[in-house]
């Protein structure tokens, strides 16, 4: 118990320090964003300056538009881009091997004709099929190339661009007519600009005409509405604050202007990166710092591009998971920049903030929730203190969101109506209740994806969540019990004859460590033979016995070749002594098969008399076909001597089985009889005989033996 108290107290302190440091940093960003937005607003509203910006002095720009299967929007998007208010620019559209008629639509809409290639391939890309110019729009160049992804398309467009500044624009992003003009303001201010970022806003619910947002509205729906506030917070408050700290690490890929010579120097966009804009900006910082080139990468808030954000949880979760995976990948890839004084503020401030403040934030937040919950269960945390802490944490989040709304209101006020304003305030308040926890979960999933090796690690690719997670869980489970351990080794084997199928066999082993207080942990591995195939299932589990009346059990498992077995399994159980010699509990099990999960809830009751013990267990399972099955079992055990115990189990009901590539609901009737013999020196032997009638398939009968040895 004292170990648990120490763990909770230590974690609490760590989280508290993390919370204070991170939020103090946010406060610094918040304060710094005030003079920054004030200056930017003054410059943006300066009509004189606007006039100057329309002079011939402005640098020519190439707009890069990658397009893949964009038949529905390509004509409108390109037309809108071709009518931007800027004196000297060209548009390079890249048809990235679209499977639909994107190229044909471009050809007809803009009267394209083929021309020879007139530039060297500075950055290697997928092969170019053809190059087209337009008879009706002299600014337009269209590249047709084999499919290579967005980054590859952008690289091809960079190769083809003629002008010193390039801006990448998504085909589905709507750029405001004067946005390019505004985006070049830092160049007129004369600083050594490597890249400039503009604001991306949410277009959902806005009125769009001819590819232009003519009436900005805040969506009435919860998800896009909250994202309006989220985007405001990210752009107006976060990035403006970073301007003053000299370390903007993200220039949005949907709307960012880059100096081409630097892009070429770093080899363009990396085709293997998940979030290409973050990766590119970090590489640019690394290159420019290494070359000791004076530069700035400012964010300016008044140039605006509008984009559609996800309206469904499914799409949003995928997007956020991908973004976070990209962040983890970038932080891992460029870890040498972390705390490296060679990279100045980027190495000492921006990278640590993104690594610890952004990347690890969901892990710390989850740990906070779990520790608080565990602490509350065991009475180790002061309830009023915990609630107050949560209130302060959420209140701070709300304060930051409302601050972003304030910045918008005192500066650009794109949302003119009062009802939009109130909706923004409402969503800023609601964001912390549910939405924020969802984003934490999605971002945590990114860590799981990373451990699974989903398109992140390159040469370090890892397969399955087995090794690293097992190692971590092992350390976690065994840390406490090892202090006062009892260790046991057990092994078992079984053979079953199955009607209408190959026989089933099992060979398994387990290592268990238990402390004097009843806390323990185990690792187990089973080799399974089913349907003529073999798989290995690994499990790791822990039991906590925090009070004399309570047991908490958790187990996680993973399969090597999940053809017939679940990819992974999770099991939790809480049992309590509810009366003398009577315990009750509830278990939950999730088996994730390739076709979907099977969730099982298992209430159970155990009681014992002087010689007999009884266990009653039910299982309510829900499978991917949305069928709910119910089964129950009773086990009776009796000691027939001081070394020997016999047991009988009877069970019946419907259970979910993975048979023939799908989850099926089988009607089963089970009978098991067994004997357990405690031999000398802590060795136990067991033998079980079973018969299972299963309808319509998988009736079987068999025998199982086991041996257990205390160390």
């Amino acid at each position, binding site marked *: 118990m004292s170990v648990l108290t120490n763990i909770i107290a230590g974690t609490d302190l760590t989280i508290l320090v993390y919370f204070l440091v991170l939020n103090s940093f946010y406060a610094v960003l918040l304060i710094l964003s005030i003079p920054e937005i004030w200056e930017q607003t003054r410059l943006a509203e300066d009509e004189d300056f606007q006039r100057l910006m329309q002079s011939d002095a402005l640098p020519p720009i190439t707009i890069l538009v990658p397009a893949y299967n964009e038949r529905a929007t390509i004509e409108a998007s390109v037309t809108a881009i071709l009518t931007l208010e800027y004196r000297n620019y060209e548009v390079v559209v890249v048809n990235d091997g679209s499977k639909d008629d994107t190229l044909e639509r471009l050809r007809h809409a803009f009267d394209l004709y083929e021309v020879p290639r007139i530039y060297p391939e500075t950055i290697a890309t997928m092969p170019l099929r053809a190059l087209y110019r337009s008879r009706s729009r002299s600014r337009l160049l269209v590249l047709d190339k084999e499919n290579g992804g967005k980054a590859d398309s952008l690289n091809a467009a960079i190769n083809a661009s003629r002008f010193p500044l390039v801006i990448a624009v998504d085909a589905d992003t709507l750029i405001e007519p004067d946005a390019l003009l505004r985006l070049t303001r830092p160049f007129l201010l*004369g*600083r050594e600009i490597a890249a400039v970022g503009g604001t991306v806003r949410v277009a959902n619910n806005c009125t769009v005409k001819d590819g232009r947002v003519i009436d900005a509205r805040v969506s009435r729906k919860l998800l896009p509405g909250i994202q309006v506030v989220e985007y405001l917070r990210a752009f107006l408050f976060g990035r403006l604050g970073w301007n003053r700290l000299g370390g903007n690490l993200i220039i949005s890929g949907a709307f960012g202007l880059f100096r081409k010579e630097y892009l070429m120097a770093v080899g363009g966009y990396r085709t293997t990166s998940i979030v290409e804009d973050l990766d590119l900006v970090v590489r640019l910082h690394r290159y420019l710092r290494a070359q000791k080139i004076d530069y700035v990468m400012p964010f300016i808030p008044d140039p605006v591009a509008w984009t559609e954000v996800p309206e469904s949880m499914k799409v949003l979760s995928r997007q956020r998971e991908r973004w976070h995976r990209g962040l983890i990948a970038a932080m891992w890839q460029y870890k040498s920049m972390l705390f490296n004084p060679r990279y100045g503020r980027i190495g000492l401030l921006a990278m640590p903030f993104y690594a610890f403040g952004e990347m690890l934030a969901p892990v710390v937040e989850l740990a906070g929730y779990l520790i608080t919950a565990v602490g509350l269960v065991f009475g180790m945390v002061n309830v009023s203190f915990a609630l107050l802490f949560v209130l302060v944490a959420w209140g701070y989040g709300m304060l930051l969101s409302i601050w972003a709304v304030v910045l918008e*209101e005192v500066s650009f006020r794109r949302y003119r109506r009062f009802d939009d304003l109130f909706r923004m305030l409402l969503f800023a308040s609601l964001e912390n209740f549910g939405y924020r926890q969802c984003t934490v979960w999605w971002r945590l999933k990114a860590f799981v994806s990373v451990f699974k090796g989903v398109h992140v690690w390159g040469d370090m690719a890892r397969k399955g969540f087995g090794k690293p997670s097992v190692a971590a869980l092992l350390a976690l489970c065994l840390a406490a019990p090892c202090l006062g351990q009892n260790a046991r080794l057990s092994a078992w084997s079984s053979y079953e004859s199955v009607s209408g199928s190959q026989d089933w066999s099992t060979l398994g082993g387990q290592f268990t460590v238990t402390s004097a207080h009843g806390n323990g942990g185990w690792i187990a591995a089973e080799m399974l033979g089913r349907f003529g195939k073999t798989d290995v299932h690994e499990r790791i589990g822990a039991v906590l016995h925090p009070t004399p009346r309570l047991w908490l059990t958790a187990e996680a498992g993973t399969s090597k070749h999940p053809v017939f077995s679940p990819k992974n399994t999770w099991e939790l159980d809480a049992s309590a002594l509810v009366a003398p010699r009577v315990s009750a509990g509830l278990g939950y099990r999730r088996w994730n098969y390739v076709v979907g999960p099977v969730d099982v809830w298992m209430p159970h009751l155990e009681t014992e008399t002087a010689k007999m013990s009884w266990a009653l267990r039910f299982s309510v399972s829900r499978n991917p076909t949305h069928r709910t099955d119910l089964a129950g079992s009773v086990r009776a055990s009796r000691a027939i001597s001081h070394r020997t115990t016999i047991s009988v189990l009877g069970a019946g009901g419907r259970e979910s089985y993975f048979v023939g590539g799908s989850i099926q609901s089988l009607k089963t009737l089970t009978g098991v009889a067994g004997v357990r013999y405690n031999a000398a020196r802590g060795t136990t032997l067991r033998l079980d005989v079973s018969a299972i009638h299963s309808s319509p398939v998988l009736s079987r009968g068999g025998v199982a033996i086991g041996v257990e040895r205390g160390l």
Partner: protein
Amino acid sequence: MKAHTFLIVVAIVQGFLLGALMALIVLNRWFRLRRSSRLNPRREAVDASMRRWTAGAAPLAGVLVGLSRLPVPLAIDALVKWSARVPGERWRQLAEALEHTWWARLVRANSSSARWWKRLETARFLSVAATPRDVARLTTLIDDPHPAVHVAAVASLERMENTRLTLAALDRLPQLAPTVQAYYAAMLLRSRPVVVEHLQKRLRRSEDPALPRLAEFAARLGEPALRERLTALADHPDPEVRVQSARALGSFPHRDSVTALKHLIVDDAWAVRAQAARSLGMIADVSVLPLVKAALRDDVWWVRLRAALALMRFAAPGRNALLEAEVGADPSARTIAQMVLGLPAQALAEFAA
């Protein structure tokens, strides 16, 4: 207990701040609405009086009264807006009259303010309403460290022809980033005689670190009086200066220019060779055709491209040279000739620009 109290205090402060922010949002909206409803009629009154005064239907006093009733930034906005519409002589009357108004005196006094936005206000005002007595102020503002301020101040060159101001801007030009340089250059073009005279002196200083930028500006001017100096720079040890010289000489179809370009097309620096090829194409003197043809076999792709494009400007002889190269032995020359011969007229025009 202490931590508990601390959290309570934080929670109370947060609650107070949240309330304050909400109030700020609502008050901001209310204030803006009230302000615009109060100021819009005044702005319209200024526009109306300006219109009448421009047409000679009303005295200047009405405009001055209207401007003084507006907040200073709005009054400056109105002046900037109307400065492009009112004829020069009438506008000078207004500028003279504004010297005596209290708010314009206040704006002028801010030219040495420690706050950049105050100096910006002065620069914007003076860019449209400066009088000869403001030259000293404007010179200071052109040297201002804040880019917005000096960019606004240099716009005064549009209205004021003053040697001191022009030279101040010209001295500042080499220190600026390329985009701002281009803007300054556009402003300085209006005072061409003063600029040319000054450049003739500056281009003689071969050790001047600002020489590449000044040569670039001189090339942009295309002024025959500078040809001699630019030709002399073709022998400068700094390749950046030679690039600017090569670029500039294309605008002067003169025997000396051709002689200098003949040297530059075999320069060690590829950027110089590329510019020289381009300029020889602009002059299109048939005597240099073999040199440009030889550049088709240059090691650097850009030089070959510039040479091939230059040959297209030599009309029939150039085109024939490209056709020869297209079937010639040199693979690099063959590729570039094929590519350029396949370019449509529009693409050729774009490259020539």
